[in-house]
C-alpha cells in the first residue's frame, strides 16, 4: 500500500454510513439488523469493533450468515479475519457491537458454552493435542456434549460406557469422513501436515456444530490437495453444516463460497457473491494495490 490516502477516505465514507445506520440497526425492538431482513440468518456480526489499546483490529464490521451456505471471509494478511473468528468463538470480547448466534448474544459467554451452542472452529496455526492419538483428539470434541460426571467415570457407570462407545464410534466415522480413518491410532504429531489439517476439521465436527469456522484450512496445500479439501467442505455443507471460511487466496474461495465479505485493515470493504466481489474496485485495490491517481 504505497498510497493509502485515497483508500482511507473511502473507508471513512463507509464507516460513516454504518454509523448513520446504527440507531436503526440496534433498535431495542428489532432483533435483526435492518440491512439483513433475512429470517434464515444464523450468525449476525453486528457492528463489531475490537480494539487492542490504540490498534483497531475490527472496525464496525457487520455481516450475517444464512443457514446452509458457505460464506467466505477474505482479505489480505492482517485484515482482521482471524480476530473476527476469535471474537465469535469467545477468545476475544468485542469492544463494542454484538455477535448473535441463533438470535442469542455470544459475546461474553464462556468458550465451551459457545461450542455447545454450535460454533466450532479450526486454527490457522494447527492446534491439535499433539501427544494424543488422532482418535483421542476427535473424542475430546465429541465429549463436548457428553454428560458423564467425574463420579460416573470413576465407577464406569452405564452412561459412561454408553457415551464412551458412542463417542468412539462417532469419532471413527468422522475420521473416515475426512479421509484419515486409517490413521486413527497414530499420535497426532506424527501425522503429515495435510492429515493434521483434516484432523482439525474432524475434531471440530465432533462437537456437532451448526456453524463450522475454518481458518485458512488450505494454507500450504498443493493445488490437488486444495481441490479435495474444497470437495470436503462442500460435503460438510451438504450435510447441513453452515461453513464460514477464512482464506486469503481469492481464487480458492471464489470456487466454493456462496457469498463473502472482504475485510481490509479491520473494515468491511465489500460483500456479495463471488462474482460481485471480484469486480469491486475496492477489492481489486486491496489485493493489487492501486496507484493514487487511478483510484
Amino acid at each position, binding site marked *: 500500500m504505497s498510497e493509502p490516502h485515497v483508500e482511507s477516505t473511502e473507508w471513512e465514507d463507509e464507516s460513516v454510513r454504518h454509523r448513520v445506520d446504527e440507531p436503526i440497526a440496534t433498535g431495542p425492538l428489532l432483533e435483526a439488523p435492518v440491512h439483513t431482513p433475512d429470517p434464515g440468518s444464523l450468525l449476525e456480526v453486528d457492528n463489531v469493533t475490537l480494539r487492542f489499546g490504540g490498534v483497531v483490529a475490527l472496525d464496525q464490521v457487520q455481516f450475517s450468515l444464512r443457514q446452509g451456505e458457505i460464506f467466505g471471509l477474505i482479505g489480505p494478511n492482517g485484515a482482521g479475519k482471524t480476530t473476527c473468528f476469535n471474537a465469535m468463538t469467545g477468545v476475544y470480547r468485542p469492544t463494542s457491537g454484538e455477535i448473535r448466534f441463533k438470535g442469542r448474544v455470544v459475546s461474553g459467554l464462556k468458550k465451551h458454552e459457545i461450542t455447545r451452542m454450535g460454533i466450532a472452529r479450526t486454527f490457522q496455526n494447527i492446534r491439535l493435542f499433539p501427544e494424543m492419538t488422532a482418535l483421542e483428539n476427535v473424542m*475430546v470434541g465429541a465429549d463436548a456434549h457428553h454428560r458423564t460426571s467425574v463420579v460416573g*467415570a470413576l465407577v464406569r457407570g452405564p452412561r459412561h460406557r454408553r457415551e464412551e462407545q458412542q463417542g468412539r464410534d462417532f469419532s471413527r466415522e468422522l475420521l473416515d469422513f475426512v479421509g484419515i480413518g486409517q490413521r486413527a491410532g497414530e499420535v497426532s504429531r506424527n501425522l503429515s501436515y495435510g492429515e493434521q489439517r483434516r484432523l482439525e476439521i474432524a475434531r471440530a465436527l465432533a462437537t456437532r456444530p451448526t456453524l463450522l469456522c475454518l481458518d485458512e484450512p488450505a494454507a500450504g496445500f498443493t493445488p490437488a490437495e486444495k481441490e479435495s479439501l474444497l470437495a470436503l467442505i462442500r460435503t460438510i455443507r451438504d450435510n447441513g453444516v453452515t461453513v464460514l471460511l477464512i482464506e486469503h487466496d481469492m481464487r480458492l474461495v471464489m470456487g466454493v463460497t456462496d457469498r463473502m465479505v472482504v475485510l481490509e485493515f479491520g473494515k468491511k470493504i465489500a460483500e456479495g457473491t463471488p462474482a460481485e466481489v471480484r469486480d469491486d474496485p475496492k477489492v481489486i485495490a486491496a489485493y493489487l494495490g492501486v496507484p493514487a491517481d487511478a483510484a
Partner: protein
Amino acid sequence: MTAVEKEQAVQAPPERRPGGGLRGRFGRLPWPARTAIIVGCVVLAYGLPYVGYVPMIGPQIVTQGIDWSSALFSISYFVLLALGLNVVVGYAGLLDLGYVGFFAVGAYTVALLTSPDSVLKTHWAWLAAVPVAIVIALLSGLLLGWPTLRLRGDYLAIVTLGFAEIIRIFAESKPELRGDRGFGGIPHPPGKNGDGTALFGVRDARPYFWLGLTIIILVILAVRNLDRSRVGRSWLAIREDEEAAAIMGVRTVKFKLWAFAIGACVGGLGGVMFAGYQGFMNSSTFQLQFSILVLAGVVMGGSGNIPGAILGGALISYIPDRLRGISDPLLNTDLFQWRFLIFGVTIILIMILRPQGIVPSRRRAMELKDRAGEVAPQ
C-alpha cells in the same frame, strides 16, 4: 459385507500402538496373561514383608537400621501421595508445590476428631474420622483451587507453596492445633487378631502396610478409570493446549478443579493413614521438603503414568531408609547421615540418564524428545 468382513473393518485401525520395550510387550499379551501378571504382582506386593526370608536376594532388599515392616508402611503412604500428586501434576499439568498441605489437612482432621488432646473432645474412632477427613481434604482442595486455578505454571506453583506454609504456620500458632506439642493418643484402625489382641498395634507394622497397599490398589483403580474416560482426555487436552481445549468444549476450570480435588483427597487419605499409624503427630511433620520430596518422586518415576508414580514414590522412601544402619568405610558413620547426598546424586543420575523418568509415560517421553530438539543447536 459379511459379518466377518465388518468385524475386520471395524478392528482394522489399531487404537493404540504399543511401542517396543516392556510396556509394549505387556500391551500385546492376551488378556488372560496380562491378568495373571497383574494378580501375581499384587500377591508379591502383599508378600513384601516376608521378602527377607528369600535366600540370597532377600537380605539385600530389607532395611537394616529400621524395622522392614515400618519401612514398607512408609513406602506405602509415599506411594499413595505420589499417586495423588501425579493426577495434579502428571495428568492435568498443574504444578503443585504445596501438596503436603492436603496431607496435613487429612492428618489434623483425624487428630482433632479422635485424640484425647483435642479441644473437640469427640473421641471418635479412627474409622469414623476417615470419611470426614477425606471430605475436608477435598473441600480444602476446592477452596484452594477455586481462586488459584486461573493462574498458570509458575504462578500456581508459588500459590500452592504458600498454601502449604499457611497450613503449617497456622498449625504452629493456633493454640487449638497445639503446634509442636501435637496430638497424642490418636486411635489405631480397628480390628482384632484371632487371639483377641488388636490387629493394628504398636509392635507390628505389617497390618498397616497391608491396609496401605489395599488403599493404593483402590486408588489405582479409580485413577485408571478416570484416565480412560472423558475426564482423563480433558486433563490431557488441558495440559497440551488449554485454550484449544476450551474451544473444543472442555470445561477447563471444572476439570482442573476436579484434578485438584482428587489430588487433595488422596493426599488427605495419606495423612489419615499416617495419623492412624503414628498415634502422634505435630506441626513439624509437615515441612516443605515433604512436598518437594513427593514431587521429586513423581518426576523421577515418570510423571503422567501410574507405574512411574508408584516406583518414584517407593524410591523416595526406600532409598533413605535402606541407608540406615550401614556404616560407611571412610568415616565410620552411619550412611544415613549421607542420605541427602546419596539421594540427590541418585536423582541427578536418573535425570541425566532418563529425563523422562524411570517408567516414562508414552506421551511425556515424546514431549521431552520434542523439547530436546528445541534446545539443541541447529
